[in-house]
């Protein structure tokens, strides 16, 4: 025999853990300590079967804690007090006796804790915890219903198994309903508790300025920046355009407000992408270089191909982008050459001297670019994230002394040399590369792929993408395509695919998408052809029918009653009809029926049937035939 209360307690603790674990890392020390203490005290008391920590003490203990956190609550700090009080309330309930009422409260608090953990991080792990919790809650609710009827109820193991199976089946049965209702139930345009959430945003990745020489080592975060759903592209095309830095101030490149007007002319095939950026503080929307169109409301488009979003950054976005990926964009009319060749007055004469030296023999922009490229390729420059030049003369150090740096040094130095040589140019910040997930059909781009390159204007051609980092002596090692095929990376991509599906189908599934799907479904229904459908599903129907027929033939005996049972049923029906003797199964023996019926044929049937039944053997064929004959002829 197993105690229902004991089992319900175990489940209650498990549910508590499901709510606590995801929230625990985000809590401050006090609630963390309370939780550990509450768990320990609860377990100890349950183990002893004695609960000195009474309910009134628990409730009394919560009041001052509640007041303390209520005072701390403010618009600037709304989340932490709320989750702290939730966690402490859960800790207090876990510490006490697990009555039915308290167990239900623990379940509710655990669910709130789990839900509040999503204010900090909404990853697929949340779904895992939620699924597990709902499963456990379903079983626990069933057991608590039993406990509620009788606190000390004991059940035999065999019965308990049935109870648990039935309890576990309920959430499984509700899954299809959940999948059915999730897409069609009305959704709000904004998440309901958005007011509480201060989004956890990335601050790494590319920034709003390029400033080589600030730090000796560059940090590399592998956090996800965005995903781009699209076909596979050649590595040369994988430049993701973010911002453009058009002005040099001192040692840094910034984006000046007055971007000179120009009219780009895009030719060649376009590449469409569906971009899912992670939450970020940046308002710049990324697209494959160079984006010709990004479909998103509240978007400001600049002539230099930068798209800035002016809406709320609190929610996950997704948008479509169309790009001309060839790295060359023609311009209709002229550009503002003085703007794009302007350098700070205090630029090092050594750098301008170098530029003049390199390009002295040529006149055209194209030739100047080629010579500068040659200079970089043959200059022994190395791509490195450590040992970087620092200080106000970092660029000079990079060009003449250290000769190692990351993309900002390469791009910045190349642009300065170009402008010194009179070639209009600008810096483009974004990302380079991406890991393609074959499973999901998208590129995964992380913060460590942040990159800066140069766009130079060639008269007659337009803006040409130049990546000076690729001129580094060790560029082949840095952007080695082969490393991307490692097993770990493939595993990472598979995991990311799950994350991506979660993001795409749950997180960003809002009212707009719902409306869009409904519209598409309506369109498809209009164009539906019944004949086509029939033709398509006919093979499946046929296959299922064949399978059922096969099952029918193979398992006939086990699927249907044995002939002994069938003939007995017929007999009982006939006896009821002709003699008015109604027999519930097992209530009346065969001989008793015969006695009541007082009929010779009924007696004969009973004799033959009982002869087999009570000797524990099956009817012989002769006996069976005789019984059938009796039934046919009637009594």
């Amino acid at each position, binding site marked *: 025999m197993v105690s229902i209360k004991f089992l319900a307690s175990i489940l209650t603790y498990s549910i508590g853990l499901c709510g606590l674990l995801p929230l625990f890392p985000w809590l401050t020390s006090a609630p963390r300590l309370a939780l550990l203490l509450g768990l320990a005290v609860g377990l100890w008391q349950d183990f002893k079967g004695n609960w000195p920590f009474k309910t009134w003490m628990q409730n009394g203990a919560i009041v001052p804690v509640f007041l303390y956190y209520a005072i701390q609550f403010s618009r600037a700090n709304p989340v932490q007090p709320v989750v702290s009080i939730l966690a402490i309330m859960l800790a207090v309930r876990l510490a006490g006796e697990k009555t039915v009422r308290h167990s239900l409260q623990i379940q509710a608090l655990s669910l709130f804790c789990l839900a509040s953990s999503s204010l900090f991080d909404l990853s697929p792990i949340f779904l895992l915890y939620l699924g597990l919790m709902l499963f456990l809650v379903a079983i626990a609710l*069933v057991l608590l*219903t039993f406990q*509620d009827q*009788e606190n000390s109820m004991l059940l035999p193991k065999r019965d308990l198994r*049935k109870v648990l199976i*039935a309890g576990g089946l309920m*959430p499984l049965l509700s899954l299809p*309903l959940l999948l059915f209702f999730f897409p069609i139930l009305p959704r709000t345009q904004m998440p309901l508790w958005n007011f509480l959430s201060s989004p956890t945003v990335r601050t790494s990745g590319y920034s709003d300025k390029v400033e080589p020489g600030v730090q000796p080592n560059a940090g590399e975060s592998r956090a996800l920046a965005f995903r781009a759903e699209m076909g596979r592209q050649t590595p040369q095309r994988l430049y993701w355009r973010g911002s453009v830095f058009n002005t040099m101030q001192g040692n840094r490149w910034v984006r000046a407000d007055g971007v000179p007007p120009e009219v780009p002319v895009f030719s060649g095939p376009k590449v469409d992408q569906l971009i899912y950026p992670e939450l970020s503080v940046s308002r710049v929307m990324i697209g494959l270089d160079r984006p010709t169109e990004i479909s998103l409301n509240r978007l400001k488009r600049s002539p230099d191909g930068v798209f800035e979003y002016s809406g709320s950054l609190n929610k996950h976005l997704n948008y479509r982008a169309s790009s001309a990926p060839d790295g060359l964009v023609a311009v209709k009319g002229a550009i503002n050459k003085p703007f794009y060749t302007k350098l700070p007055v205090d630029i090092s004469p050594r750098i301008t001297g170098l530029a003049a030296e390199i390009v002295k023999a040529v006149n055209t922009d194209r030739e100047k670019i080629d010579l500068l490229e040659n200079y970089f390729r043959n200059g022994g420059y190395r791509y490195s994230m450590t040992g970087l030049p620092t200080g106000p003369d970092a660029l000079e150090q990079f060009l003449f002394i250290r000769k190692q740096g990351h993309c900002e040094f390469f791009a910045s130095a190349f642009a300065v040399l170009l402008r010194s040589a009179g070639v209009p140019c600008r810096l483009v910040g974004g990302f380079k590369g991406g890991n393609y997930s074959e499973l999901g059909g998208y590129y995964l781009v992380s913060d460590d792929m942040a990159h800066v390159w140069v766009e130079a204007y060639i008269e007659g051609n337009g803006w040409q993408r130049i990546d000076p980092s690729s001129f580094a002596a060790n560029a082949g090692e840095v952007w080695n395509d082969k490393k991307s095929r490692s097993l770990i990376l493939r595993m990472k991509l598979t995991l990311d695919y799950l994350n991506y599906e979660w993001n795409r189908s749950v997180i960003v599934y809002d009212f707009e998408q719902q409306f869009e799907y409904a519209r598409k479904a309506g369109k498809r229904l209009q164009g539906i052809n019944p004949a086509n459908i029939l033709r398509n599903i006919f093979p499946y129907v046929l296959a299922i029918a064949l399978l059922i027929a096969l099952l029918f033939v193979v398992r006939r005996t086990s699927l249907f009653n044995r002939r002994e049972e069938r003939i007995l049923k017929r007999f009982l029906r006939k006896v009821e009809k002709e003699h008015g003797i109604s027999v519930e199964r097992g209530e009346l023996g065969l001989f008793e029926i015969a006695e009541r019926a007082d009929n010779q044929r009924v007696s004969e049937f009973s004799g033959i049937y009982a002869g087999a039944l009570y000797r524990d053997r099956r009817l012989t064929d002769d006996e069976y035939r005789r019984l059938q004959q009796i039934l046919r002829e009637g009594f």
Partner: protein
Amino acid sequence: MSVTGMAGMSNIKGLVPSLIPPEEIFAGTAAPFRLCVRNGKRYLPSFLIRVECQNSPGSTFPLIRQQTLSESSVMLTFDRRGQIPAVKVTVSSTYPVGFFTRYWTFEVDTLLTVFPAPLAASYPAGGVNAPRTGSNYRRERGLDGELERIDLYSGSEPLRMIHWKLSARSADFLVKGFGSQSATPLTINVADLPGRGVEERLSRAAWLVRRWVRERPVGLVLGERIITAGCGRIHGRMLLAELALYGLD
């Protein structure tokens, strides 16, 4: 919600309660009934079934497997004598999650006869062996009854009464003492019984029937109806049923 609703519905579906009464039920006295619930469902068991009849505290069945019968006992009390054609039985369950209680009410056919509540009585005109209050010894002796005791020979007993086998082993003669097989019939005239009103007199008659029917023939005079004296439990129940239904038609 829909899944738990369906589970709750199917849980109490196919349950058929039945009541098996005890042989004798007296008004105002709790009688033990066998309460059976049959789960007629083919595949699904029923969980946490609570069955309540009338004003009884009811009983709970944690699990009733499919196609089986579960039994329990309940004490039922009926206030008045007479025939009870059916008893109201409520089958309920809070399964699966205890937020709602679903129930069905059945009228279980019982055709019970509730006898009048017995009320102790002495019968004034009972013949030679009329019951008296006080001593409760049985006095009648005879020669045609069962061997009831061995006594010392007093000199007055017939010789054939001497138990020779036992006497041979002892110093005295021992005689067999037989009981009397023929007891005086007792005819209870309800109208003659003391009591305030018919109900009380019926109750006293019921007590007398219960008291004597196993020991001597008991008959009944109920108004104009006369039931000849008879012995045994079955006759006793017949008399009690007459008392139960008297004046209710």
